[in-house]
């Protein structure tokens, strides 16, 4: 056991060489796109527009601050775009799916029945439904298949429509999401 606390492992998402390669490709694509746009809109000498467009990103290959600025702008745009898309996916997923499904009720037992004397219920009933979940998981089983199998077991096959939402959220993930811990409510989820 080390005497001092362990340092977190150093993780680098992308290598610098990869980013430079991406920069070069993006430069070429940007130049081509500007040239094509100029041609489409009938500008004179569209090839010159394409060459001129190189002037914007190309200095980044020789002047690191410009390169860093470009990457930062790109990241900021990507983050903002992902946040907007994430909010959109969440709203569509919730208001479209749950507002509809919610109309048919839920398994939550909220009402107090007349003369009710106990809220203890036998676990046997639910254990039958959930028995499959306690078995050792299959090696490398895809979570989506397991989710659908589990939902199907309980007659909730409609959850198949949740899969695209979850997949999109996975793609649009936000760094550091798992560390959020609200202080005003119990971590129900």
């Amino acid at each position, binding site marked *: 056991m080390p*005497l001092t606390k362990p340092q977190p492992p150093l993780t680098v998402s992308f290598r610098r060489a990869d980013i430079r390669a991406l920069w070069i490709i993006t430069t070429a694509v940007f130049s081509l796109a500007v040239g094509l746009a100029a041609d489409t809109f009938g500008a004179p000498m569209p090839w010159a527009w394409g060459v001129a467009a190189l002037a914007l990103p190309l200095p980044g290959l020789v002047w690191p601050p410009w390169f860093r600025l470009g990457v930062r702008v790109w990241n900021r745009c990507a983050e903002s775009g992902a946040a907007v898309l994430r909010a959109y996916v969440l709203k569509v997923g919730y208001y479209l799916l749950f507002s509809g499904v919610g109309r048919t009720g839920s398994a939550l037992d909220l009402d107090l029945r007349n003369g009710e*004397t106990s809220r203890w219920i036998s676990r046997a009933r639910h254990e039958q439904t959930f028995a499959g979940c306690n078995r050792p998981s299959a090696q490398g089983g895809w979570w989506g298949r397991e989710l659908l199998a*589990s939902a199907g077991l309980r007659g909730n096959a409609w959850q198949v429509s949740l899969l695209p939402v*979850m997949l999109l959220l996975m793609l649009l993930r936000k760094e550091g999401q*798992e560390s959020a811990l609200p202080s005003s409510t*119990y971590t129900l989820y």
Partner: protein
Amino acid sequence: MSVNILGLSAFYHDSAAALLRDGTIVAAAQEERFTRRKHDPAFPTNAAAFCLSEAGISAGDLTAVAFYERPLVKWDRLVETFSEFAPRGFALFEEAMPTWAELKLQLPSRVRTALPGFSGDVYFVDHHESHAASAFFPSPFSEAAILTVDAVGEWSTSTFGTGHGNQLVLSHEQRFPHSLGMLYSAFTHYAGFRVNSGEYKLMGLAPYGKPRYVDLIRDRLIKLMADGSIWMDMSYFHYGQGLTMTSPRFHELFGGPPREPEALITAKEMDLAASIQVVCEDAMLAAARHLHSETKTPNLVMAGGVALNCVANGRLRREGPFENIWIQPAAGDAGGALGAALLVWHREMNQPRQPQFPDAQSGSLLGPKFSNDDIGLFLDSMGAAYEHIPDEETLLDRVARLMAEEKVVGWFQGRMEFGPRALGCRSIIGDARSPRMQQKMNVSIKFRESFRPFAPCILREHAHEYFEMRPDEESPYMLFVAPVLSTWRTQLTDRDRQDMENPDLRVRVSVKRSTVPAVTHVDYSARIQTVDEGRHGRYYRLMRHFHALTDCPVIVNTSFNIRGEPIVCTPDDAYRCFMATDMDCLVLEDHILLKNAQTFSLIPNIDDYRKQYSGALD
């Protein structure tokens, strides 16, 4: 070949890992102790690495991994909750879904990725069965009734059943959203404390108040059945649909919005705390009586977050129907890691169980320990002034004398505790007789609200002489509260009575009520840890020295940390905490450090130190 099972709890609060080898608990620890982030919910990478290193194995040597919850069953509850409250629950949905998409639905692969080389089975164990297993299997009973009560697991919020031999059956449950734990947390939130971590503060606040809201709670918020089960009127609560525990209707009922954190605590909060504490105790007692009538066994084991309510536990012991009660010391979610592993061993692998006496928890001292050689090297590297005293008698005599001189001692020895309590291995200790000790520890060392007294440690054989306990009863894990016997109580003077009306709770708690004022609450109760030689070794012998010197078998024990900081794990953590606070002395195994002998330039700025933990959950 040995069977090694790694139990894990993660991603909610108090992540932890525990390792079993052929059914014996080899190691267990909470992740927060390594990352220094209170209630760390992250995957317990460091805790798991420690467990594997303690056993001298790698992940490839693990037979199985047991996770303390079944994510897909929890997912089911989540989806049903969204369906029930749609379209009003978007805030909760927005908070929950990304975490599930990125992490929780992929737990099996996440577990394997985090344990490279592991190729065995991953078991997902029911949350409350994990709690139940953590309570029954390490207990000394061959047969017992089992009661688990917490906020919520997958669907269950509390369960009961029986354990017999290596078998465990939970026959009944209460289901979300009706939950005693949630109810208590709702009041924690309303009283201005943090949910998931401030519940013990609410419990500590209760003795100041009058339970004048009990009828209101029972008439309007809940229906408490005769068998201890509860129904909750969800129009008063908001946790099914939002990011707060209570609804506007709740606020209206109790006459205003929740108290702002750090705002003045008023009589209203005290009365609310007293009221919900009474309701909680009544529910626990009724559930225990029902369980006893169903099972007819004299033994009860408990786990789940509500089982950390030591005031309710004390009442259960004094007024309840069970002769013997054993509670898992890591009763919260951290203990689920241990329970999940034990359940896989006994149930899935069908391995026999031989109950051990006093229990199989090894005093809950299951964390890392450090050698004297390593500590010496570390202290040298820090340039610390210290004395190495290899003779135990000399060392203990020296420390006992310092304590008798009202010095505050940081005591670091042996394996770190598993669970939320410091039990004499990572503790700050002092003289319980000192009327100044409570304030000194609170203000200059712990930097916390000081309306709560400290816990007493008492030599096991003297416990019944000081507190209302049977001679055969013990409380080695600080999980029971009992009143101080009238013999030791002191008469209040007129000035004391006047102070007891003071709105400043620090004044009230400092009134001398007994011969051990530092550990006596305003209602003469104390959260007791009994100390015995078998479990506590050197700590017990230190207390014997103190007893011989002072004729007092009681000392103050509080966790070795400041407010918001996890309990120290390593000598480095302990040294930094010692240097940053007003502790007088630090004992690291055989090494003793006196504050006034340290080089001034090495003492860090206390504000910088506190800042590290200022945003943390208490």
